[in-house]
């Protein structure tokens, strides 16, 4: 694993894996679109009515119906929908009066920034905690970490966000409150990547940078806590598997120091499966951001989604669902492929 040899056979294997990956991913995307299509066209309140209004005549109604293509068979409608999506056309948002795709492109970086810092915090704390728990299996430290991790499965994200605001913002004043930056820093930095930290650093405007970090750190830490829970549990169970192996005893027979037994012999083999776990958690953070963003008024995709939900803005809801779902699927499948390519035993 320390060096990845690229023999022709291994390369052919990864090309094959990539091909299979592309097909499976594509099929999953189509499945995702089928679901959003189904939600959008089949279940809800009559989409025609929401366009023409209650007082439209039957003729107006029928005309709108034909214009929207709703008189065609479902399969044809679905194909048209898939075509639209692939061209980046997600419809028009009623609440912002702009194309949904444009809206999403604008809000997505804010979510990405928060989720990325969140996963860094989650991995940075979850992995060592998991390893520690496994090394001390059955002791009170192990139990403490276990309960701490289970809390991550039991605490509502929105509640923890509120409590965090009360304690660290209102109470202790350690961090800044809701939003991405203070109001007077708003729009100071030209958005290039859309990531506030990157943009302000590029512009050399460190006031904005520190202010943005101050706003980001609390929601990202809370988000990170939820990935920590999963990462620590998985790390612990992988480590326990490893520490039960014969070659761990071999290392001890050699007189290798305990930290080296754990980190070199125990931890090294689980780095690859951990990649999958981290990928899954990262994807899950996108989902978790919906609640956190609502609480912190964070102008990301989660906030956009909840605002759209409350306004019954179906195009925006389905567009956001589709994008979050697509990113989720992509990260999932990518970490899967990465796993297969990096594991030396599969060579």
């Amino acid at each position: 694993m320390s060096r990845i040899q690229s023999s022709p056979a291994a390369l052919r294997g990864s090309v094959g894996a990539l091909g299979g990956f592309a097909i499976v991913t594509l099929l999953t995307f189509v499945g995702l679109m089928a679901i959003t299509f189904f939600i959008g066209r089949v279940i809800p309140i009559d989409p025609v009515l929401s366009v023409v209004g209650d007082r439209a005549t039957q003729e107006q109604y029928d005309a709108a119906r034909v214009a929207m293509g709703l008189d065609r068979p479902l399969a044809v409608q679905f194909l048209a929908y898939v075509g639209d999506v692939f061209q980046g056309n997600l419809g028009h948002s009623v609440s912002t009066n702009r194309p949904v795709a444009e809206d999403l492109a604008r809000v997505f970086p804010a979510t990405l920034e928060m989720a990325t810092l969140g996963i860094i915090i989650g991995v940075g704390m979850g992995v060592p905690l998991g390893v520690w728990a496994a090394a001390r299996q059955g002791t009170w430290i192990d139990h403490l970490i276990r309960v701490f991790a289970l809390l991550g499965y039991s605490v509502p994200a929105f509640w923890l966000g509120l409590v965090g605001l009360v304690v660290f913002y209102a109470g202790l004043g350690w961090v800044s409150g809701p939003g991405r930056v203070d109001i007077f820093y708003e729009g100071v930095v030209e958005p290039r990547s859309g990531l506030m930290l990157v943009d302000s650093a590029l512009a050399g405007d460190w006031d904005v940078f520190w202010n943005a970090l101050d706003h980001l750190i609390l929601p990202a830490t809370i988000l990170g806590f939820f990935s920590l829970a999963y990462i620590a549990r998985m790390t612990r169970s992988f480590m326990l598997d490893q520490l039960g192996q014969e070659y761990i005893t071999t290392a001890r027979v050699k007189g290798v120091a305990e930290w080296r037994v754990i980190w070199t012999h125990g931890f090294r083999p689980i780095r690859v499966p951990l990649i999958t776990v981290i990928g899954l958690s990262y994807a899950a953070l996108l989902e978790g951001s919906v609640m956190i963003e609502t609480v912190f008024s964070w102008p990301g995709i989660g906030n956009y989604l909840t605002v759209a939900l409350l306004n019954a803005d179906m195009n925006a809801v389905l567009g956001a669902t589709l994008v979050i779902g697509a990113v989720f699927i992509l990260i999932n499948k990518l970490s899967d492929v990465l796993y297969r390519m990096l594991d030396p035993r599969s060579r």
Partner: protein
Amino acid sequence: MTTMTDWLLDDSPTSRVQASLGRGYRMIRLLMRNPLAVIGAVILLTLIFAAVFAPWIAPHSPLGQNLSQRLLPPSSTHWMGTDELGRDIFSRVIYGARITLMIVALVAVIAAPLGLLIGAVSGYFGGWTDKVLMGVTDVFLSMPKLILALAFVAALGPGIENAIIAIAITSWPAYARIARAETLTFRNAEFISAMRLLGASHARIITGHVLPLCTSSMIVRVTLDMAGIILTAAGLGFLGLGAQPPLPEWGAMISRGRAFILDQWWVATMPGFAIIVVSLGFCFLGDGLRDVLDPKQGGKS
């Protein structure tokens, strides 16, 4: 007493009743040895108790407003304080146990059998049935559950029934996967072929033999999932998409308290503690059950 335990622990039980009672007894004994599982069981029993006897436990009415008693901090008369309409939060939390229990039970009753059936049929028949069913399952599985539930509720309209349906729709695929994996392990077993030779129909084998064998791993998984279901339901309530006011649903209560969070912290935080305790209870019990019912997985996660 000793003869009773001896009878229960007999290595060669003489009747079916003795065998299954003995198995149950052994399981409970193992479970009792895990302190976290015991705590979990106690929490859940308390939840059920609170839900059943809410009118007798709650000191005040969950809906009765008293505007002269608005936003009072926790005290001996109002253990968790009062909300913006002067309602006793403790009483509302107690009544909220009913809603939580109902959501959890209904989701389990809808999603688990659905997943179980799809998984068992898929694993039992194999071939194209399997490919198609598992393809659909995988599509659902690879999607974010909360987002999907949100989209469903958006389409169906807010409300507690729709929230339950949406959560159930997003929960079954995981159960289908487990049931299929379980079915595959004994699909080619001798006793299945023996049943076929005796002329039993597929439907009979699946309902009579395949499904019961999947239940133990199913119970473990459902228990572990309960925390997530509670959190999703509370989240929908928080966003105003689940239970509607004035129902004392915990997530919706937090949402109402959000407006007063800086000055009257207890309005939003108290229901949160209820959610945490109950979710933890399910996690603890689920972990313990897994160690007992599914020893293969015992060391894992």
